[in-house]
């Protein structure tokens, strides 16, 4: 799904389309152009996007300084920004959220502009990311480690996240192209799209995945 440039009408009503959903079914690419209202109605866009903190955090990555006040220390492991800057090491997976605004430029430098993961996922879907148990000593009991039989199968929301990531991927490629072509106006548009998707779709999809599933026998 991506925002549409000028001219396109919504497939459901006469308003101009702002969202394009691309799905692949049986090998065929299906595109839908929707306005924002219809997109929410059909579930393509989330109605109540994530929680406020998630959005603040995600957009904080792109608003210089916005995330800094909250990013001075990680509540889970106690890693401070100063410590991270000194040793270059994060203390737990929560640090990736807490220090996200500082990671962006660093990651781009370290990974030749790579900002989004494109490699493999854990065999059973990204279970680690959904494990909402807080990190720390209290969560270290062996009982928390799932046995193979209890590992949750990938749900539809995993597929959603994969789709969103693919889209982010494509947008980032376009962003690079636009920058290379010095088409900064276009680049700014694409960047805004990326920010919007990060702020709304990803947290919503993650929130959906956190909801317990019938087949989820995992320890809390």
């Amino acid at each position, binding site marked *: 799904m991506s925002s549409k440039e000028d001219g396109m009408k919504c497939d459901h009503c006469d308003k101009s389309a702002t969202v394009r959903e691309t799905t692949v079914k049986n090998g065929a690419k299906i595109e839908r152009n929707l306005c924002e209202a219809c997109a929410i109605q059909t579930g393509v866009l989330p109605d109540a996007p994530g929680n406020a903190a998630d959005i603040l955090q995600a957009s904080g990555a792109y608003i210089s300084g916005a995330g800094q006040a909250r990013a001075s220390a990680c509540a*889970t*492991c*106690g*890693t401070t920004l100063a410590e991270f800057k000194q*040793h*270059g*090491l*994060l*203390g*737990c*997976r929560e640090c*990736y959220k807490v220090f996200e605004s500082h*990671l962006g430029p*660093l*990651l781009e430098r*370290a*990974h*030749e*502009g*790579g*900002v*989004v*993961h*494109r*490699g*493999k*996922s*854990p*065999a*059973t879907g*990204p*279970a*680690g*990311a959904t*494990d909402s*148990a*807080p*990190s*720390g*000593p209290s*969560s*270290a*009991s*062996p009982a*928390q*480690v*799932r*046995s*193979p039989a209890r*590992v949750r199968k990938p749900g539809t929301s995993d597929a959603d*996240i*994969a789709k*969103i*990531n693919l889209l*982010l991927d494509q947008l980032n490629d376009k962003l690079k192209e636009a920058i290379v072509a010095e088409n900064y106006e276009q680049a700014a548009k694409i960047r805004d799209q990326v920010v919007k998707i*990060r702020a709304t779709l*990803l947290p919503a999809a*993650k929130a959906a995945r956190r909801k317990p599933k019938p087949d989820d026998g995992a320890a809390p």
Partner: protein
Amino acid sequence: MNTDGPSAGGGISPGAGVPWLAGEGQSADVVLSSRVRLARNIAGVRFVGKADRRERMHVLEAVRARSTLLKNVGQLVWINLHESTVSDRTILVERHLISKQHSKSRGVNAEDPRAVLFSLPDERLSIMVNEEDHLRMQSVMSGLCLDACWRTLDAVDDAIGAALPFAFSPRFGYLTACPTNVGTGLRMSAMLHLPALRLTGELEKVKRAANDIALAVRGFYGEGSEAIGDLYQISNQTTLGKTEQEILAELHLEILPRVVEYERSARRELLSKRLSTIEDQVFRAYGTLLHARLLGTEESMTLLSMVRLGVVAGLITGHTQAKINRLLLLVQPGHLQLMWGKELDQEQRKVARAEIVRQELK
């Protein structure tokens, strides 16, 4: 699984050399070995640097329990490094089964729970537990074979990952203590013998070119080590934003074959245009190794490098690459003392090293 940590690092036979130095496989004239490493952390447990003793112990137990799921990797040996001797750890470092960092301890406390799991007889798989990340899994084999190493490790990663939830985020991928490893957590490297490029003065070009495309060039013992014996490791730096297949293709199909060809053409040029100079250097090195009575580690490796070039180029006959590769390991202090059967001080080691080299090259 062998659960003890007997001397000589849990069933390793030091005199036999290591399979990844067997001098076999594709492009073995230049590429000594290929290595693939994956960094993983267990979800819900703080990374090693911030983990307390209980969490570290939990990680050890969790990994050890899951290791029984690994099939077709040979006999597995588990060693608790916090309970092992310094000499055991030295052997493991010299065989590249653990890093120097892991041999010591990251924190202040040398007793920090940490372990290594590796496969026998071929040592192609090893897993460092509680190094910088909870798991550092690696697969090492002889010659240019990053593809085979990757297949092995990918399967191991799937088997363990299916039973142990790894810290993963859709945006950042596998989460690692150091953000420079985040994403795939994948490091692929090849150990290359590049004496001709040093002699022709073209090595700096290779290093510069590698840096330009975000590849790291390091010494025999990896990060922070000097290149001794003309041995270099070339590895990817980027782990985020590329797929494993892309990283593999870039190194295995594009970069490394080019460096191999570059070294080969430098060797051909030396042999055709500066034969006496090269013969002189090769045979001086050979002569020294055959007759010296005192040899240091670094000196031995430098001389062995020229002898290896001589063997590969057909100037020296009667020795195999495998034997010279094996000597590169036997001259290391840990292996030397194990071969000798007792602890030696530095001067005694020089005597012992010279004697072992003389015997092997006789």
